């Protein structure tokens, strides 16, 4: 996920110093994202180097420096927000590689892997359901939408596991039939 544009988005609301960026970013995601403070400072320095943010005001407590968006930073953020996301690289996750290898190495018997993967997805659905419930209780409608997106993706992953399992059974059945 782009921390670079996340920081630009937060600074578009008001100037912030590094630690404020960290806490606001984490609050934005309802506590589901743990941000490393070192990563925040490194990203701020790079944004400053690229002319997208600039220091503002005097250094405060313990040398804390606030940053604000430059006009170029505001344009870059606007362009990024208006650009649709490309499809995620769906076929590059480890689970796909495992399936391809097991299909070749274990006589095509995917049952164990699929059962374990199904449990992971079910548990994720349970956790996301609780998170959606929490977000609703807190009146965080934006976070609810985010979690609903994750839930829909996980439901699709589960359906795909079912498709793989059906195909695996059909293949095993037809091999059994051929040998009879």
């Amino acid at each position, binding site marked *: 996920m782009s921390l670079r544009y996340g920081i630009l988005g937060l600074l578009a609301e008001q100037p912030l110093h590094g630690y404020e960026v960290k806490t606001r970013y984490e609050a934005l995601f*309802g*506590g*589901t*994202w*743990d941000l490393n403070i070192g990563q925040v400072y490194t990203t701020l320095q790079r944004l400053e180097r690229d002319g997208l943010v600039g220091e503002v005001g005097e250094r405060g407590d313990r040398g804390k420096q606030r940053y604000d968006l430059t006009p170029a930073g505001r344009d870059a953020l606007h362009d990024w927000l208006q650009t649709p996301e490309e499809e995620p690289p769906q076929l590059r996750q480890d689970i796909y590689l495992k399936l391809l290898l097991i299909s070749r190495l274990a006589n095509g018997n995917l*049952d164990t892997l699929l*059962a374990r993967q*199904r*449990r992971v*997805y*079910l*548990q*994720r*659905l*349970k*956790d*996301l*359901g*609780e*998170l959606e*419930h*929490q977000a609703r209780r807190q009146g965080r409608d934006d976070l609810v939408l985010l979690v609903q997106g994750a*839930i829909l993706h996980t*439901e699709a992953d*589960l359906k795909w596991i*079912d498709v793989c*399992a*059906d195909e695996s*059974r059909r293949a095993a059945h037809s091999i059994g039939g051929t040998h009879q």
Partner: protein
Amino acid sequence: MTQVIELTQVSKVYNGGAAQTALDGISMSVASGEFVAVMGPSGSGKSTLLNMVAGLDRPTSGRVCVGGRDLTGLSEGELAKFRRTHVGIVFQFFHLLNDLTVLDNVLVAAELAGIKRSAARQQATALLARLEIADKADVYPAELSGGQRQRVAIARALVNRPPLLLADEPTGALDSRSGDQIMELIAAINASGQTVVLVTHDAKLAARHAQRVISMSDGRIVDDAVLEPAAGTRSLLTFQREEARR
């Protein structure tokens, strides 16, 4: 722990034209107090499984025990009596009697089970209050929303204090908000000790509320997963850290 349901090598073959295997050697058990979801696509056998447990259908082979009773050898009359006293069933389309008020819909089930009217009325009124429809006791089903009708159906299912509550797609005919409320109610009923078996094709519902999810396909159980309690935010942080380590 006491087993409320015990199925041993249960098969069901329908012989209309070409023989069709709806259940293929199912063995499973459900302990008292559990909330188990049975999941699977249409035709996977999940509703047939529920019908076996409810005593609404008989297996071609195998043994079905519910609440300590072996249903296999029961006569039709004995099965009907078993259903009235041992299981409460909630269906997708409510199945309420439109000519009876809400209270009478609940009372009919109690009277059929031979419970005295005064005791039945007390239990029915308490259930309607718990399900937050006490003010609808004297109205007819046609005047209720889908969510309210399903609450009446749940009250009817529970009025005889059955050891087992079976729910077959209980939110299938409801909008998502009413469906969520019905599921929260069923979860609360389970939290008070009621054993619940939920049949659904909805993975989100199954995972959200059940402690255990049985997945079915082609009449067989393909997975029986016990889930951890929901971890919400914490689990996603863990997930993020694992991603970061890669």
